[in-house]
């Protein structure tokens, strides 16, 4: 008995020393508990159910590394995380339009990432139909990462560490687009944000101030028909009455459907973590939430084709906007933003 204890202690000591030398930080260790898919109370059934892509710590860790590795871009300068920054709730802080390789500027605002498994389509125009194929769009876009998936595979095949990580994740050393995409889907799919003060209030774990309660009431009356709880989007495409930007010439949804009726319609974005994701709107034209509310509360400024729900908002008073702002700040989920599972593994 005593011998056994000594043996275990020795192993532990050796492990501690080894881990100390190899720099493995407990903070970055992912367990099977960490990758368990937990559907938050009150959330609907997710669209992506990890079918044929059962989460495992090794696959998640591989997906996380790929997400943070600029190797996915043509000149190895841009990673997914270059634009989807954790500190900005996986949006691009203080950048109105996306930035690509060689200093190229895109035509749309980087969307924040969270609760992606509830989405049936991706991008502001809904052009991408599946979480797993979503990364192919920024990887191959000439003004984003401008890379081919075939060349990404070639680069990864020349990296001994990646070969080992693919083996650990999938049981063999072959590197394929399917493995790359599925591991990225595990990492991004597990980015679930459901622990904001709003969520705690809904679960009865926290209380709202009078101002926040007033904000929630106004929100439910005037905003929730499109920004539907608990995801804060109904995943539809709508014209919100913004004047088209004459330089960007972005017609939005109609580029996908070919339907004139869809001109200038864009995805209703989730409002979760909106405090962190400035600037706002599909083209990042508003720096502050107050600017957004000023627009939504001024029907006289809408373009004629604004969705009818926009006109149902009516005029918002300054007091309404203050209450709404107070409420919107309750959608910030600090435990999501600081979740150790999502931290850049290259900084360890």
């Amino acid at each position: 008995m005593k011998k056994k204890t000594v043996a275990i202690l020795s192993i532990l000591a050796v492990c501690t020393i080894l881990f100390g030398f190899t720099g493995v930080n407990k903070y970055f260790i992912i367990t099977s508990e960490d990758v368990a898919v937990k559907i938050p109370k009150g959330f609907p059934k997710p669209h992506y159910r990890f079918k044929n892509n059962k989460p495992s710590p090794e696959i998640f860790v591989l997906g996380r590394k790929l997400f943070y590795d600029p190797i996915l871009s043509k000149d190895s300068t841009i990673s997914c995380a270059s634009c989807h920054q954790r500190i900005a709730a996986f949006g691009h802080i203080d950048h109105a339009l996306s930035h690509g390789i060689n200093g190229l500027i895109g035509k749309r605002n980087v969307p924040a990432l969270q609760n992606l498994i509830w989405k049936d389509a991706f991008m502001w125009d809904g052009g991408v139909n599946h979480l797993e194929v979503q990364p192919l769009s920024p990887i191959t876009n000439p003004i984003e990462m401008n890379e081919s998936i075939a060349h990404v595979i070639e680069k990864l095949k020349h990296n001994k560490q990646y070969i080992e990580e693919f083996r650990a994740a999938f049981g063999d050393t072959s590197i394929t687009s399917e493995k790359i995409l599925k591991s990225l889907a595990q990492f991004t799919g597990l980015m679930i944000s459901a622990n904001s003060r709003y969520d705690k209030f809904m679960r009865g774990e926290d209380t709202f101030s009078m101002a926040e309660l007033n904000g929630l009431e106004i929100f439910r009356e005037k905003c929730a028909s499109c920004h539907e709880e608990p995801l804060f989007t109904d995943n539809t495409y709508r014209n919100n009455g913004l004047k088209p930007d004459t330089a960007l010439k972005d017609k939005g949804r109609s580029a996908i459907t070919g339907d004139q009726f869809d001109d200038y319609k864009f995805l209703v974005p989730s409002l979760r973590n909106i405090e962190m994701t400035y600037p706002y709107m599909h083209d990042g034209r508003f720096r502050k939430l107050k600017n957004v509310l000023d627009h939504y509360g001024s029907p006289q400024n809408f373009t004629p084709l604004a969705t009818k729900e926009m006109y149902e908002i009516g005029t918002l008073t300054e007091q309404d906007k203050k209450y709404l702002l107070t409420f919107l700040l309750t959608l910030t989920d600090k435990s999501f933003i600081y979740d150790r599972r999502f931290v850049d593994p290259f900084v360890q």
Partner: protein
Amino acid sequence: MAALWAAMSFTKPSGGKFTITFHHYVGDKLLQLDTVIYNNAFGQPFTITKFKYYVGNIHLKKTNGTDVVFNDYYLVDEDESPSKKIDLDIPTGEYSGIEFIIGVDSLHNCSGAQSGALDPVNAMFWAWNTGYIFLKLEGKSPASKSSGNVFEYHIGGYKAPANCIRQVSLRFAQPFTVNNAGTKELHLKADAAEILKGSTAIDFSTLSSVTDFHNAATIANNYMGMFSVLSVN
């Protein structure tokens, strides 16, 4: 599970080997990439530099009214000789025809990351508006006003506004019987010239590039008729 299916498939009634070989033509001449000059319906000379397409949902029609169905997809590429021959195991019986689609069905356009013929690494995939490119025909013509006088027709789309999946249905001149011995060979002609004139003649000077849904259905209606049976033996 996959292993179980594989094991079970061995228990089905025995049969023979069946091969489908695609022979690429331009009109009545075998297609030669890059080197041979052809003429379109407007008399515009052109060369072809790329010709590849998806074939799937193959149904072999039996004379007893039943179908033998194959669920795999095949990417047939003029530049890759082995891709022009499909090997299948088929049950014994008498067969009168074949049906397949040019393209990739809706389900396989919405299934996320896939491998084999449907691996996006094959560069037959649109990332910005998810979906497979069903057919690529590229070449050069002095009539084309595009940079480098190229023309490129990348046709895909499994839903509105341009569903470009096209069904091909071919009858064999004589039904043939598959027994337990030997191989039956079906030789199909795919005439690339049809893509440029099937139901609408394509003028390189006015339409040298199709890379999204605009004009895609026009080309799809043309390629619908590009296949015919050369021989069964």
